[in-house]
């Protein structure tokens, strides 16, 4: 039974240990805050959202598939949340039965557990079916309509009746009958469990037709004999205990997938509620088919700043106009990094199928997104730092695919400007010529000057605005790089301004 709410044709799997790339993207884009808002205190939602956001970007059909489910979720939030809670409850119940050596060594114990767990699962499956039946008329998305149809087909009244009967027969109130052969060393072997009789009466009826029968009984005080009988019984029900336990695994797997995939949409609902509370806008973005298509945003802002509750944040517009490279320069503390982050987050969120923090967003889908941000923490080791930056870069190169996107923030600035610019120029040129999209925040003027001289590169230059009086507006506007950064301003601000009282 498939859930398939994230992909039309397959399950979503969570990679429990994110690659280095995932960790870098998490840190560099400040994803943790966003995930916290999505999780609303539920670690599972945090994990699912993280995994979806950090997965390789799916193709556009998948993005649209998820967007449709998300629209249904936004229209029927209570139904989605109830379905999610049913899955959660089913799984919590199952977790009471911990597997240990005790269960796994005795088929009789496995069978006992299997009966109890399956009873509880059957209850929750019935509830799930009822909940979906209530709202299915409102579903518009392929994902949820298909799921409703699957539940309809598979969870029929007849199915539930069968489950009830099995769980009763497996109590073996009239004894356990197996067929057997003589195995190696004459030991009884090839036990095949035969359908138990339903009642004492039919049992008697059958027995009369069975021909000769030989019987013996173990004395009640004969402990080793009783153990040996238990051994035969356990071998007889070994397979059915296995099958039933596997069935509980499979139903559990269904609930796990359901919980996980619904969890993503519940997390999206949580995020939208947070943004609504903060009074900011969001939009369902338009994924673009062609990588060269017009990539543009209006009113783009960084949700991480919003969620941190720092009051109203400045939003920005941009339009790539077919450029392959975006270079952002300008004043320190002028909003460059925030802008770069907001683009990175918008891309990740769009590719995950989520809403985007902007008034309007249209962007191409990249297979992978990488970040290479300057690390402040190990500033003490100046000599080792360039080495570390280059090592990180090399790891990124190992995982690049054509069409990937790399965000650079003040990369290769840990050596002198001339050398840093030389190294960065070679890397950026090679990446762009290999079909990689590159977004760069830099204050290496030598680099920006030389980038303009590379044939066929055509970078788009944006600049953090600074007013005549040196004030920053945090607006990022088209503009060629200026030969100086604004360090002196900052220095002045910190050292010469009167402290505000």
């Amino acid at each position, binding site marked *: 039974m498939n859930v398939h709410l994230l992909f039309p044709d397959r399950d979503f799997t969570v990679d429990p240990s994110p690659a280095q790339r995932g960790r870098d993207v998490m840190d560099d884009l400040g994803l943790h805050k966003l995930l916290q808002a999505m999780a609303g205190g539920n670690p599972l939602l945090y994990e699912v959202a993280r995994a979806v956001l950090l997965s390789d970007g799916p193709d556009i059909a998948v993005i649209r598939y998820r967007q449709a489910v998300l629209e249904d979720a936004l229209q029927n939030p209570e139904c989605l949340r109830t379905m999610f809670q049913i899955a959660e409850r089913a799984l919590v119940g199952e977790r009471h039965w911990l597997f240990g050596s005790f269960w796994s060594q005795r088929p009789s114990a496995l069978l006992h557990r299997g009966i109890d767990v399956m009873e509880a699962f059957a209850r929750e499956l019935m509830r799930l079916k009822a909940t979906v039946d209530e709202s299915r008329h409102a579903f518009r998305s392929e994902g949820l309509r298909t799921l409703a149809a699957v539940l309809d087909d598979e969870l029929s009244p007849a199915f539930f009746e069968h489950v009830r009967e099995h769980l009763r027969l497996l109590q073996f109130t009239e004894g356990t009958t197996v067929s057997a052969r003589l195995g190696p060393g004459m030991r009884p072997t090839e036990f095949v469990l035969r359908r138990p009789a339903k009642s004492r009466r039919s049992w008697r009826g059958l027995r009369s037709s069975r021909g000769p029968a030989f019987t013996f009984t173990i004395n009640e005080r004969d402990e080793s004999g009783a153990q040996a009988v238990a051994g035969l019984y356990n071998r007889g029900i070994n397979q059915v205990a296995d099958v039933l336990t596997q069935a509980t695994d499979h139903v559990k*797997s269904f609930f796990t997938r359901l919980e996980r995939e619904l969890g993503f949409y519940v997390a999206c609902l949580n995020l939208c509620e947070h943004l609504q509370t903060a009074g900011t806008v969001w939009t369902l973005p338009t994924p673009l088919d062609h990588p060269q298509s017009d990539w543009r945003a209006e009113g783009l802002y960084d949700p991480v700043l919003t969620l941190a509750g720092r009051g109203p944040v400045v939003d920005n517009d941009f339009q790539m106009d077919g450029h392959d490279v975006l270079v952002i320069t300008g004043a320190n503390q002028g909003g460059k990094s925030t802008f770069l982050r907001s683009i990175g987050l918008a891309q990740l969120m769009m590719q995950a199928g989520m809403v985007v923090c902007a008034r309007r967003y249209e962007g191409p889908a990249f297979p992978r997104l990488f970040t290479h941000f300057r690390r402040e923490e190990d500033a003490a080791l100046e000599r080792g730092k*360039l080495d570390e930056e280059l090592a990180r870069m090399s790891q990124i190169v190992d995982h690049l695919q054509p069409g990937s996107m790399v965000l650079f923030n003040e990369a290769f600035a840990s050596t002198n400007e001339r050398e840093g610019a030389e190294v960065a120029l070679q890397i950026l040129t090679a990446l762009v010529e290999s079909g990689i999209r590159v977004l760069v925040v830099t204050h290496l003027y030598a680099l920006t000057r030389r980038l303009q001289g590379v044939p066929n590169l055509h970078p788009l230059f944006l600049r953090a605005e600074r007013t005549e009086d040196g004030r920053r507006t945090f607006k990022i506007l088209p503009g060629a790089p200026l030969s100086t950064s604004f360090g002196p301003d900052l220095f002045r601000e910190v050292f010469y301004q009167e402290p505000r009282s």
Partner: protein
Amino acid sequence: MTREELHGDVRLDPAWPSILFERDEDADRSVNPARPTHFEDLHLDQVIGTIVASRPEHHLEPFFETPLRYTAGIAYRQAVFRDCENPVVRQALDTWSAHMRAVRGRLEDVRALPYRYEQDAWFLDAVSLYGEAVTALRAALDGAPIRSDGLVGFARALGRYADSSRFRLLREEAQTVRAALATIRYSLTIKGLKLTVRPFEDRPDYTAAVAATFSKFRQEDQNSYLVRFADARTMNRVEAEVVALVAKLFPDVFGRLTAFSDRHRDFLDPGVTRFDREIQFYLAYLDYRDRIRHGGLPFCYPELVAGESRVDVRRTFDLALAEKRMSETADPAPVVPNDFRLTPLEQIAIITGPNQGGKTTLARAIGQVFYLASLGCPVPGESAVIPAIDGVFTHFERAESAGSGRGQLKDDLIRLRSILDHATASSVVILNEVFTSTTFDDALYLSSEMLMRLQGLGALVVLVTFLVELQAGDPKRASFVALVDPHDPTRRTYRIIRNPGDGLSYAATLAERHRLTYPQLRERLTP
């Protein structure tokens, strides 16, 4: 059918003696041999110990401790080895060995187990397995490309045995009883402590019914919760009880089984079991060799030249060291192979060089080549041309007895004297750091004396020594030296040979090292 025909004495041809010994004489010597005295010095105790440990039940030590005295015997074994190298033959013999191991296991069960029906069952199993083993080996050898006198002779004798009516009837009877037992099905009902056995009745398979109900949830990857029941070989009391009831349901089949095991107690042929043990010599050695060879080290069949002292061994190495390296780590440091050559004129090899430079290792390797060659085995190395010899004598400085003074020196001399007494012009003598317990002058004097005597005797000598003076100008002496790295004299290369007597910036360099320059990146990013 007469009793004669059933129990007639058609056995594996007694005229066909042995897969190991071309002559009975060598076979007799191998009954209870004395372990050669050089075993510890050459670390052959470790090598042979490892080899025989793979098949303890066959007690192969005596075979490995009996060097052959005739090149014909060596050639006989080399030919069998070459046949065994063929994957088809090797596979057939490995299968055979596994079969026979199983047969022995079954027969042990028969002796050890308490219930008559299970004894009979295992006995029947043993007979069937033996029959299969013989038939399968016979079929495999019939079609196999074997050329050695040993295996061709055995295959012929085995063919006659397998075709004998005694063997065929044994198989057929076993087959019939097995088939009858295999058809038995019964029904067992357990209710509390009461067990009921009935003839088989075909009610629906309930496990399948449960599986069908839940199949809609089925996933591709799934755990198995089938419990593996320990010790499936022996029957408990209750099972014996159940089987006794089954025997009541099928008295005829069980009666035939009991009669069968009473009649065929001595079904194993002594000639066949002898082959089974002796062939393990080859298989055990080849298994061992394959493991070492897997690490990239070569083996070859030595060419034994009688009456000439030319030695030409290429890329040989110390087996014990290679084995040790491989067993200690998954990715062992390679053992360095070395060449060892002496012209027909040269008789004494003198190896000098720094400590821990691989001198002793090479001396050991040479000794191993000579000894293993005398067993008829493939030897470590890419190729080996060596004289046929009558024995290997060694004297190695022993760490545990490296005391000083007269006692030690005297012991050394006594042992050397003994070597001189027993060695001949056809012997190999390997001396490693003798006379270290005395003064330099004494050592030089004593060593020169020893060498003169050995030279006079005509034995082939390998001498490891720090006394470079011993190398001085004698055409019968060849000197070897352990090499050091010319750039770093503290580094050992373990190679032993015949003695012959930028203008980039820091950042750009770093980028290049990380393969991040423009051309490097373009190459890395080209799919």
